[in-house]
């Protein structure tokens, strides 16, 4: 492998990692605070991508991405609100399996609703006006849009860190991760907190969908594709940890891009092998919190 190839793969991997981080941070946040594995997270991501494609088509490609980000996040958060208050809230006292199945039912429903609203054709979304060119990184062309994804992911990461560690909401979230019973005992409305956290996670998924729309085709099936990778990220990093999501996303993104180059036949296996190895050594992931038994 030439140094040139190395840089190319590294940048591709980091771009993928940026996207995966935004998706899995939401998944991880929801799990950490609520102990719910949301299989419908990928569906919210797909919903965000399709919403963004419509917004960009309406507003125009030049500045369309900005409103698309906002609208996609809002739509996903709205659907998240409906899911949490309408369905999940009734299942917190039941077995994990029923929660998993409920979110799986939502996967099926959203997939068909998206198919009904947007049809089966793949859609492409034009990049915004300032981000269509490429810059040179050590002789390698890096599309500005990829750079934008990386920077945006870092900004989201910074924002999440600030919210979780420096605000009242974040204090409640951290408390809920440790012990929701005590949190309710000191007078916090845990039910409302859960709704907020779930909407925040959903908004992140929707935003990630909007971000990815101009970089790849928007189509049916992207919900399951991203879900499997996001699971790999959160499992490696540890469910419930934002830092874990960051590290996990970097590992999966980079393993993915180098895996394709080094073992083209077994590129997919590299991710899952990494996942199995991490879990076998640390069953709750690198930064994960062990499950409350």
């Amino acid at each position, binding site marked *: 492998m030439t140094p040139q190839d190395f840089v190319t793969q590294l940048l591709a991997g980091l771009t993928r990692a940026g996207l995966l981080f935004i998706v899995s941070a939401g998944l991880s946040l929801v799990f950490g605070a609520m102990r719910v594995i949301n299989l419908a997270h990928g569906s919210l991501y797909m919903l965000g991508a399709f919403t963004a494609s419509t917004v960009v088509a309406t507003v125009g490609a030049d500045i369309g991405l900005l409103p698309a980000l906002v609208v996609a996040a809002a739509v996903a958060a709205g659907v998240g609100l409906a899911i949490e208050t309408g369905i999940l809230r009734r299942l917190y006292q039941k077995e994990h399996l029923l929660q998993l199945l*409920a979110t799986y039912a939502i996967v099926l429903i959203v997939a068909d609703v998206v198919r009904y609203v947007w049809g089966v054709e793949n859609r492409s979304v034009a990049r915004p006006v300032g981000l269509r060119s490429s810059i040179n990184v050590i002789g390698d062309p890096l599309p500005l849009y990829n750079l934008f994804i990386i920077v945006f992911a870092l900004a989201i990461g910074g924002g999440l860190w600030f919210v979780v560690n420096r605000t009242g909401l974040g204090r409640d979230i951290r408390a809920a991760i440790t012990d929701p019973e005590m949190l309710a005992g000191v007078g916090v409305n845990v039910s409302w907190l859960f709704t907020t956290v779930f909407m925040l996670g959903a908004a992140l998924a929707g935003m990630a969908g909007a971000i990815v729309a101009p970089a790849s085709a928007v189509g049916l099936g992207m919900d399951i594709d991203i879900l499997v990778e996001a699971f790999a990220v959160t499992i490696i990093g540890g469910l419930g940890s934002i830092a874990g999501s960051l590290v996990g996303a970097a590992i999966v993104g980079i393993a993915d891009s180098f895996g394709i180059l080094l073992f083209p036949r077994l590129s997919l296996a590299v991710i899952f092998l990494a996942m199995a190895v991490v879990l076998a050594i640390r069953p709750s992931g690198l930064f994960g919190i062990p499950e*409350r038994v």
Partner: protein
Amino acid sequence: MRGLRPRPLIGWAGLVLVAATAPLFLKEIELFTATRIVILALWATSLNLLLGQTGLVSFAHAAYFGVGAYTSALLWLHLGWSPLIGIPLSIPMGAVVAFVTGAFALRAARLYFSLLTLALSQLLFVGAFQWYSFTRGDNGIHGIEVPEFLYSIANSYWLVLAISVLGLVALRLIARSPFGAALLAIRENRQRASFIGINVKRYELAVFTIAGAFAALAGSLFAISNQEAFPNLLFWTANATPIFVILIGGMFRFGGPLIGAVVLVVLEETVTRETLYSNLVLGVILLAIVLLAPGGIEGIAERILGRVRGRREPPVGETAGPTPGDAQQGKREVRT
């Protein structure tokens, strides 16, 4: 534990009799559907040994079904053997693969266990998907040659039925054995089960291996009746089908998955014919069951029958909630 009592035994015998005479009154196309139902019933019942009986949520069960299907397919492809040899061989194959992956996955508990089974089953999927020289990769293996007597759909159905009935009887004996009772104890309360001397991990690995072996048996029957094996059999979303079946039928009774298999397949055949949006319909039904009737059809029937006969309602069918001693229960009381 309760043995095989005479009255249910007569019921089961009647059911088998009806199933065995099905080719006399069903059309050919309906026999394909019937074959699907029988295989699905066996597969889902083997999963229910984990889900309903032990309380283990595994996302690797489709992978073992796929292992069985590929056992038959690969014997034919590489060695030119009759795929029928895959039927007995699929059992040890499934057991070995399930044992190895299960030993890994059971290092974790509960949710992390589920995720670990997901990861490991995806590894198996990738093996089938990308190892072209051995499995033909994503093309799958089609047109498996079966012996001439299986050209008749009725014969193929009878073969599948005979083996599935044997498998189901074996599964029922396991479920009703002292071993099965220990599994129930583990489902109800792992901690107390270990206090009375049950080695929880060892029992879980044993039942995981057994369930995997029967899933592989069902898979080998699929490969023979459909004459194909393909990677998507192993993909983790394929687990939705047997989980659906168990949930529709009810996970707390042995017969639940059998009812579920009939209902799901008939539902799919009718719904997919009527609408483009079959996932939407299935999703809504699944959601309704999860929210309104977690005991499934058997649970509902049980409740109605219980009321009619003035019997006490079955405790397990009703309490789908966490078991006593589950620390989460204490936490959740606060929320409501």
